[in-house]
């Protein structure tokens, strides 16, 4: 059986049956589609590969090429840098993303979330993904980068265009969006050259790796990655997390009854949804792996969504959505030294969003179809109409 892991359709249907079949029958599975690659689906195998960046390199790109999407080439970014430079680069910004630093952002995030939810009219069908959820992570990451408020909407348009380039609804091409983003960041760098603040642009301008400053294009790529990584991923975690609560009213009720369960529910959303479908690596030498031989230069596709439903780790109910699941050592943020830098931020944004949402509305229903984003990497929600009803009214019924 050949699976086209580069095709957005693979992820937009329900990939769980394919994941299950692969885990059970062929955990290291060669596919001819898309130039040929190994699909890796078991939890322990993905952890093993993630822990060995010297054997499995990120330098030649980390995502499956989308057959409908022209190649933008591989940019020099943190995500495509191998050790030892990767650690040094990452350290430049990681201290801004530690749990303690991120906690300081909570009041600001809560204000942004409340502002977004203030636009919801109870009992009225409204577009939720684009209209309510999407602006939240964009504002937060744009503020961290240092972009003025009036530029936030532009940010989201570019970010959508880069991630959803295979989506016919989005008019901008990948190249145009990359160009617009790069141009904008270059402009921000020039502004900060003369007056530093405490934003990420300023931190990167002052940074040195091995005694050398970063080149402007390196800073631009760094910011571009943060923008994309901090935007679509969280948006889709929250939108698809809301959809999970709509489709599992019993689980939703648990959170309404006991909001202290929300952090655990966010972990389960991360596991169950796995907003980022995969990362790829290239073998730097021949690696015997289970009963197969991964040859030097071949691509492995780490299918995090498959690992996150591995029965050997999550038990017989691995394919069910259970907000109280504990322990929940999912790989939604990846594993190894490239694990998501923004994971504390993503967790905080989702927790605050669901705390605020569920304190206002416990009645939730879908109105019409969910329109998904065509992407093989972050196949999120483009549009989703929902009708929300107040917490109090629900309790009275």
């Amino acid at each position, binding site marked *: 059986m050949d699976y086209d892991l580069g095709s957005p359709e693979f992820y937009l249907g329900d990939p769980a049956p394919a994941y299950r079949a692969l885990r059970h029958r062929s955990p290291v599975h060669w596919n001819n589609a898309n130039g040929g690659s190994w699909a890796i689906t078991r939890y322990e195998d993905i952890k093993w590969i*993630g*822990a060995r960046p010297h054997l499995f390199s990120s330098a030649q790109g980390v995502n499956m090429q989308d057959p409908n999407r022209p190649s933008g080439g591989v940019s020099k970014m943190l995500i495509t840098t191998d050790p030892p430079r990767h*650690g040094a680069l*990452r*350290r430049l910004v*990681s*201290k801004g*993303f*530690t*749990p*303690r630093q991120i906690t300081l952002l909570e009041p600001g995030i809560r204000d942004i979330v409340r502002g977004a939810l203030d636009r919801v009219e109870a009992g009225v069908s409204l577009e939720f993904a684009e209209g309510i959820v999407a602006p939240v992570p964009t504002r937060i990451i744009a503020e961290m980068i240092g972009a003025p408020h009036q530029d936030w909407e532009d940010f989201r348009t570019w970010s959508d265009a880069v991630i959803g380039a295979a989506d016919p609804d989005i008019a901008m091409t990948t190249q145009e969006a990359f160009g617009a983003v790069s141009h904008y960041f270059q402009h921000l760098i020039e502004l900060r050259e003369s007056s530093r603040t405490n934003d990420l642009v300023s931190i990167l301008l002052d940074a040195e790796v091995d005694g050398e400053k970063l080149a402007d294009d390196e800073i631009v790529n760094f910011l571009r990655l943060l923008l994309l990584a901090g935007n679509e991923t969280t948006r889709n975690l929250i939108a698809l997390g809301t959809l999970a609560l709509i489709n599992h009213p019993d689980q939703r009720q648990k959170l309404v009854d006991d909001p202290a369960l929300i952090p655990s529910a966010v972990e389960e959303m991360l596991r169950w949804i796995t907003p980022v479908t995969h990362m790829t690596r290239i073998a730097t030498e021949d690696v015997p792996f289970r009963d197969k031989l991964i040859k030097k230069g071949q691509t492995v596709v780490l299918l995090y969504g498959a690992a996150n439903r591995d029965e050997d780790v999550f038990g017989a109910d691995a394919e069910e959505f259970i907000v109280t699941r504990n*322990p929940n*050592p999912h790989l939604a*943020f*990846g*594993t*190894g*030294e490239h*694990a998501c*830098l923004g*994971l*504390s931020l993503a*967790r905080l944004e989702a927790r605050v969003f669901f705390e605020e949402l569920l304190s206002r509305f416990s009645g939730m229903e879908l109105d019409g179809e969910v329109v998904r984003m065509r992407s093989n990497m972050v196949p999120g929600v483009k549009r989703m109409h929902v009708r929300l009803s107040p917490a109090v009214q629900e309790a009275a019924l």
Partner: protein
Amino acid sequence: MRIVLDRAKCTGIGICESLAPDVFEVDDNGDLVVLHAEVPSSAEADVAAAVEGCPTQALQFEA
């Protein structure tokens, strides 16, 4: 139980701190500080989760 930190592997992401805040702290320089190398018994479960949850396998227990 004692915790051993491999600084060469640690990326300072702070997953350990979020799981066991009484034992781990990433400081203002982005460096992980192990506040109690000797794990207090009250924090053993949290620290075990932190060791297991470290994405770079930088934390280990010493027998």
